[in-house]
């Protein structure tokens, strides 16, 4: 009976782990998105210095979570997000507002998609 109890406990822990993972990822992405949105607001007002600063903060935060992302997220998806970060950063540094708008959308979409993929919905399961 001990074995069965341990198995049930492990299943419950796994389930709890998955819920915790979704919560953590959502919190991380929401935090990153708030900085990315702020940087776009600055860029809209042609204040590229603070825009780069905001985005750099988000990039650093993303890189700080490298260990977590590499354990729990497919490496191809990490690559897409990282690339989108640096494309947007490059556009802001170049003060290219038109291109920055596009790369901002791309980055938002890439970040949102890693959360969407972890959300338990009929679509994501099947």
């Amino acid at each position, binding site marked *: *009976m001990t*074995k*069965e109890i*341990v*198995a*049930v406990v*492990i*299943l419950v822990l*796994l*389930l709890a*782990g*998955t*819920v915790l*993972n*979704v919560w953590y990822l959502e919190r991380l992405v929401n935090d990153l998105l708030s900085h990315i949105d702020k940087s776009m607001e600055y860029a809209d007002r042609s204040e590229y210095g603070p825009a780069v600063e905001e985005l750099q903060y988000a990039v650093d935060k993303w890189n700080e979570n490298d260990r977590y992302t*590499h*354990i*729990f*997220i*497919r*490496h*191809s998806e990490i690559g897409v997000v990282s690339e989108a970060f640096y494309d947007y950063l490059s556009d802001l540094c170049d003060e290219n507002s038109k291109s920055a708008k596009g790369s901002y959308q791309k980055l938002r979409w890439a970040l949102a998609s890693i959360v969407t*993929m*972890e959300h*338990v919905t009929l679509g*994501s*399961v099947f």
Partner: protein
Amino acid sequence: MAIVFIRTLIIFIALMISTRLAGKRQMGELELNELIVAVLMANLASHPLQDIGIPLINGLIPVLTLFCCEVIIAGINMKSVWFRGFLHGKPSILIANGVVNQREMRKNRLSLEELTENLRNHSITDIRKVKYAILETNGTLNAILFPAERPVTAAQMNITTEDPGFPSIIINDGKIMKENLRLLGKDEQWLMDELRKRNAKGPEDVYLMMLNNMDQIYYLPQEKVK
């Protein structure tokens, strides 16, 4: 992570249902849940090994989930007769009193060729001699002959037989099995004496040596490598 967990549970349940519906014939000697876990685990675990872009945890979660499911199902199996019947079905009596039950044959999608082939595996060529042939829940066929067709036993003949006990290996490819030797109440000195009687210099000259409780020895020397 949650998706992987839920997907594993769904695939496990779907495989359980489909294999259960496929019937006993598909299973060989494994029970339903064991078969599914064996098939799935090997496949699931290999993906993160082949593709380093997939986090290892994506392979570990399904394996751990399946292992837990298997342990839980095996546990419930032990406790609940109803669940056992629900999961594994019931044994099918394919032959009763020498008559093939055609309904059970159809139900198990078993042809007469397969039935006779299985009977031949038990050295039975004549269906009339079979009292019962039972297709077990793990897919194996057991046949019980009519009493008149069963081999005569020593007890039926009132013959007293000696029990030679279980023959144990005492030298395995040149190595002495000390524990077996001890259990048989012998020591290495006795073994060396026996080897000398057979012109062997030591255990390295022996490929296989077995001994039973009646001190009967089976001896096979090492072949000389050319």
